Structure formats: C-alpha cells, structure tokens
C-alpha cells in the first residue's frame, strides 16, 4: 500500500482529525457515557503528535507500536487500552517492514479487531467501536478481493464505518458505560464507533491526496 512516510502522514492526519473532533466525541459521550471520550482521545493523539519527529525513518511496526504505547500510556479510560491494543496487534503484523502490501493491510486490520475483542470481551452489536471497525474491515477485504486499489477499498471501508456508526443508534449498548443506560442508550450514536470512523476517514483522506 505504501511506505512509512505515507504512514506518518496518516498518523498526523488522524491526530488532526481526532483533536478537531474533541468536542463532538465528548458531547456524544456526555449523552450515553461520562463526557470524556473526546478529551481522552485528543489527549492521546496530541501525545502522538509530539512523537512524529521521533517516529520518522522508523519501520511500520515500530511506528504503530509507538502509536499504541502512547495511547496506552496517556489515554486511560476504556478507549486507551482498546485502541492501544488494536494498534499494538496491528504493529506485530508489520514488524520490521518499510513497505507493506494489501495483504498486510487486511491482516493488520484483522489483528487489531481481534485484539480489541479480546481486551474488551466484546463483539459486533454491543454498540461499541467494533460496530464501525468490523463492517469497515469486511468492506475493505471485499474490495481488495474484487481487485480494487487501496483508495477505493478504504473509501468503501469508510462508508461502511459510517453505516456502522448509524447502526449504533438503533441498538442497545451491551458493553462499556452506555450499557448502564439499558434502553435509554437507544437513539444515540456510540462515541467510540464515531472515533473509529474518524480514524478510518483519516486514512482515506491521505490516500486521496497521494
């Protein structure tokens, strides 16, 4: 798919977008959670931003590991260890690589989701980030199988992630803080699914530019 300068661009764009969405994500979390998802995520990605220089020239695995460890060691909450574990698992797939291909992308995504499921003891339909990530992953994989390029594939993933975000409005939360609301979580979109969508969109945006 690309080299590590592309990855750095992507990481930078993720940080930018997440930081810009701080209030949106916090507001979503206020309604069905504890008003901190945007704050948490922005904190983590600001810290990542500060490490961009130090990541320069490193391989994919190394960069993703830095992203993961930074999230784990600065975010806290539920999203810190979950995203942290996701990025960490993705990193293991591409250890030492300076260039990656489509298979790597699919495997990274797959591993990340497995990691999040394991750490969160959660699954699709629980009204979490997984409801954006899993459909996105499936769309991406299918697109690649259909022979699409990465930009197209990520466009599809982004669309599916957004559908997943919409879908979270229609279900009752079974994991995370929103689950305490029971039926009252209906009608509201999940903050974590939303941040996942933003993360995927951040990849598409950079692919589009290149």
């Amino acid at each position, binding site marked *: 798919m690309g080299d590590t300068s592309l990855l750095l661009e992507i990481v930078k764009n993720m940080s930018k977008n997440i930081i810009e969405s701080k209030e949106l994500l916090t507001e979503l979390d206020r309604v069905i*959670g504890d008003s901190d998802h945007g704050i948490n995520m922005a*904190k983590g990605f600001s810290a990542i931003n500060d490490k961009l220089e130090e990541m320069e020239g490193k391989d994919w695995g190394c960069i993703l590991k830095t992203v993961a460890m930074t999230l*784990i060691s600065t975010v806290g909450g539920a999203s810190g260890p979950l995203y942290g574990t996701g990025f960490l698992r993705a990193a293991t797939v591409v250890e030492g690589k300076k260039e990656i291909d489509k298979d790597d992308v699919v495997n990274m995504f797959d591993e990340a989701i497995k990691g999040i499921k394991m750490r969160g003891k959660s699954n699709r339909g629980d009204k979490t980030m997984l409801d954006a990530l899993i459909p996105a992953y499936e769309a991406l994989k299918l697109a690649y199988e259909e022979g699409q390029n990465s930009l197209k594939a990520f466009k599809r993933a982004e669309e599916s992630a957004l559908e997943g975000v919409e879908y979270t409005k229609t279900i009752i939360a079974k994991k995370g803080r929103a*689950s305490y*609301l029971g039926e009252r979580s209906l009608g509201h979109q999940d903050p974590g699914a939303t941040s996942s969508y933003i993360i995927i969109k951040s990849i598409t945006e950079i692919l589009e530019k290149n």
Partner: protein
Amino acid sequence: MKKIINGSDKVVEEMLQGMVKAHPEFIKRVENSNVLIRKDSPVKGKVALISGGGSGHEPSHGGFVGLGMLDGAVAGEVFTSPTPEEVYKGIKAVNGGKGVLLIIKNYTGDVMNFEMAAEMAEMEGIKVEKVVVNDDVAMEDSTYTVGRRGIAGTVLVHKITGAAAERGLDLLEVKRVAEKAIENTRSMGMSLTPCVVPAAGKPSFEIGEDEMEIGLGIHGEPGTHKEKIKTANKITTILLDKIIKDMKLKNKEVAVLVNGLGGTPLMELYIVNREVHRILEDQGIKVYKTIVGNYMTSLEMAGISISLLELDEELKGFLDDRAYTPAFRQI
C-alpha cells in the same frame, strides 16, 4: 460551569498537590505519577492494597490511604481510569514483598487498565491479585452485560480488606476476605442534579426541576430511569428495597453506608439515615455500624447512595479494626 478551579486541565494535578499538603502525616506522592501512597510505604511484611480510578470521587480513593485501609491510590483524569503505567507505578511503590492486591471498581476502563498493569508487574516478578467490586444493584447482573458497576460500597471493601492486610494475612487470604466483602455488599444511588466534568464544561445529563435520576453510577452517567422527585423517606424506600431484595438479610447484621455524592448537605444524609434505620428495624435487620458522609462522590452532584454490607463474625472483626487515613478514622 461554576467551579473553584484554575483550569480544567490542571484539576487532578493541583488536587493531588493540595492533598499531600493537607495530609503530609498520612500520604506521599510517588514521583512523576498520580499515585498517592502511605507515608511509610512500602510496608514490609504486609500485603499491599491498591485502588483507584478516575478522579472526581474524592475522598475516594486517596483519602483512604493509610493505616488499616489502602497502601496506594492511583488517580486518573476526572472520571477516566488511569493508564496501566500509572497503576504499575503504584504497584511497584507499595509492594512490601508480600504481594499486592488491586481493588478495582467494575468499569471496562478500570478493569482493562488495572489488568494490563498487573501483567506488567507480574512480568517483574511481583505477585499481584485482583478483585472487582460490583455492588450496584441498579442494573441486572447478567452474563450478557458488563455486570454491575462498583460504586460507594467500594469504601466498605477498602475498610474490611485493609484490616485483613493490616493483620498480616497473606495475599490469597486477603483476596478471599476482599471477595467475601464484595459478595456481601450491595448499593444503589440516585441524584437530583447532574455534575459537570471540568474539561467538558456541560452538565452530564439534563433533568427537570421536579425530577430525580434513579440508579445512576458515579461518573455522571444518567441512571436507569427518571422519576418525579419524592420525599426523603420514599427515596430511601426505593433504593433500600432494591438492595434488600438482592440479599437475604432477615435476622442478619449489616453495616450501613449513607453516602453523599458531593453536593448534598449532611443534613439530608442524616434524614435519609433515619429512614434507613427505621426500615431495617422494621424488617428485622440489625445495624451493627453506620457510616454517613461523602465517601464516594461525583464531583458536585447532589444525590446519595445507600450501601449495605452483610456481616458475619469475621467481617465484624475487620470492620472494628483500627483505621487511620485522611478520610476514615476509627480507633
């Protein structure tokens, strides 16, 4: 948002500094961390207890660091669990060689971050055990959900478990006592107002002038439902009924905790306590000990929770043991 703060990004740091200044005879801070530990940490020959979680629940948990309760408290950002690294720093600082027990409130974030910290510490050869407090009866305890939350009953677990550790029991014994205390503790809360997370700057939920929120947690999350506001006695009945239904207390002895959520005056807590005693007496449940005050708060939220701890001879003994911390003192 009306708060006496210097900036929403500084509240935890400045609060911790203020706590250490207030209680230098009890606590000290682990360098470069948000961890408060006993002045005499690490205490040799004693299992060490660590608790913590997001800030905003003061005096929980730093206020319970001291003789007969916690060895360390790890503070996250407001309502955000601390990172594994922070918890790990706490574990290392209090470990006196007999192992460390983590007392975790049952929230996804807390459980995950504390678990990851435990994994880190274990890799260094430190014996770590965990217990998860889930006293909130507001929600069903089903396997399809994340299970019940940990709320104010956690303070009772700190007291009991702290006494067991102080007596010199070994790690697995202390863990057994903690699990028994958890098993025997049930709580439920309600509120009249939301709270405002400093960094968010907005009330955590909307509520009408004549409404109350029932069955809510301690992070400003809305509760299971709203009701028209009722008298103190009716409110007490609603909470206590749900708790008692979940226990078998007839002719048993209990400890009572009437907890304020931060913005409720002590006057109202005592009025509630009066009715708690009346109801328990009525049902043939004997109160062995009562604790009334702000122990597990949600910033400035006006509201209360009630907790019951079912006692047996062993737990009574631990409950009666000395404790001497900033926020809980008993001789």
